[in-house]
C-alpha cells in the first residue's frame, strides 16, 4: 500500500527509543494516524547501530534517569559528536533541572516530562513531519 504515489516515494520515519515495549506500543498507536513510518528500538545502542536514513523526521527518546542513568541523553550527546542530527524530543520518566539543561544543550528540541499530554505530543510531531517533508502526507485528523 505504500510507495504508490510518485510524489513521495518514501515516507518520513519517526524513530522511537524506549526500553519499555509497552511505552513503544502506546506511542506507535498514538502516532500511526500521522501516516509516517514508525521504527521502534528498545535501547539506545540498537538505535545507534541502525543506519540513519535520510527520511528521518524525528526521534522520540525516552530518558529514564533513575533506572537508566540518563542513557537517552547520552545517546543524544553521542549523536551530536557523530554529527547525526535528527530533531529529538526527550520523554523523561523522571527528571530534574540539570538533566533537562543537559538535554537541551545536546540539541534536543524539547524535553517533556511523562506522562505526556497526548494531543500536544501529536501536534508537535506533526509539525516536525511537515518541516522535514513539505509535501503533504495523508494526515487524517487525530
Amino acid at each position, binding site marked *: 500500500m505504500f510507495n504508490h504515489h510518485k510524489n513521495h516515494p518514501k515516507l518520513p520515519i519517526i524513530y522511537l527509543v524506549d526500553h519499555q515495549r509497552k511505552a513503544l506500543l502506546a506511542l506507535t498507536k498514538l502516532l500511526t494516524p500521522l501516516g509516517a513510518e514508525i521504527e521502534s528500538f528498545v535501547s539506545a545502542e540498537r538505535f545507534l547501530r541502525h543506519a540513519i536514513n535520510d527520511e528521518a523526521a524525528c526521534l522520540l527518546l525516552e530518558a529514564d534517569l533513575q533506572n537508566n542513568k540518563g542513557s537517552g541523553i547520552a545517546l543524544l550527546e553521542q549523536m551530536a559528536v557523530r554529527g547525526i542530527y535528527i530533531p529529538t524530543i526527550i520523554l523523561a520518566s523522571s527528571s530534574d533541572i540539570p538533566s533537562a539543561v543537559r538535554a537541551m544543550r545536546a540539541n534536543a528540541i524539547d*524535553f517533556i516530562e511523562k506522562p505526556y499530554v497526548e494531543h500536544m505530543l501529536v501536534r508537535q510531531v506533526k509539525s516536525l513531519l511537515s518541516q522535514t517533508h513539505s509535501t503533504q502526507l495523508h494526515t487524517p485528523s487525530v
Partner: protein
Amino acid sequence: MKESNPPPSFEQVVHIIDDDEAVLDSLSMLLDSVDIKNATYPNAQSFLTAHEGDRIQQLSGCIVLDIRMPGMSGMECQQRLDALKCPLPIIFITGHGDVPMAVEAMKKGAIEFIQKPFREQELLDCIHHALTLNKTAQKRAFQSLDIVQRCKSLTVREKEVMERVVAGQLNKNIASELNLSQRTIEIHRANMMEKMRVKSLAELMTLLLTNE
C-alpha cells in the same frame, strides 16, 4: 593601501542581575577575587536603562540573570534582550525553578540554568564558558565585517577578476573573456590581492570561504 581597522577591544564584563542584594554582593566579590570585571543591577529594568539603545548590541561579556524578580522577571528580560539583539550569553540562576521553566529558557537560547544554592566553582565554570562563547562570536562577527569591507574596497573590474580567479581561471582566459590585455589583468589581480590583504590564491580562497 588602506589601513586595516583595528580590532575592537573586547573588554568583557559579567552583568549580574538579581533582586537579592546579598547575592549581588557575594557574586561580585567572587568575580573580583578571580579578576573578572563585573557590574551589578538590582533589577532587569536598571540593566536595560543603563545600556539603552544600540549600546546594548556593543556589549561584551555575559549576563547572570535571576529568574524570579519583582517587576520584570528573568524570562521577560531574556525576551526583551533577544528583541534588542543583545549579544550576551545568559546564565539563569534560580531558587525556585522547575523543569518546564528550564526547558523554556534553554529553548530561547539561554546557555545555562543553575539552581541555588550552587557551588561557586560551578558558576565560575559556566561564566568562563559563556565568556569564551561570547569572544568567539565577536571575533567571527568582526572578521566577517572586515572581509566584507575589503571586498567593498575593490573596483568593479577587480571584483570581476577576483570572481574568475577564484573560479580557477587563468589570466589569459580572463583577459580574453573581459576583452582586456593579459598585462591589464595582471595589474588588476595584483591590486585585488593587495586590497584583500592576501599573498596567495590559497589565502584568498580561505578568506572567502571562512566568510561563507
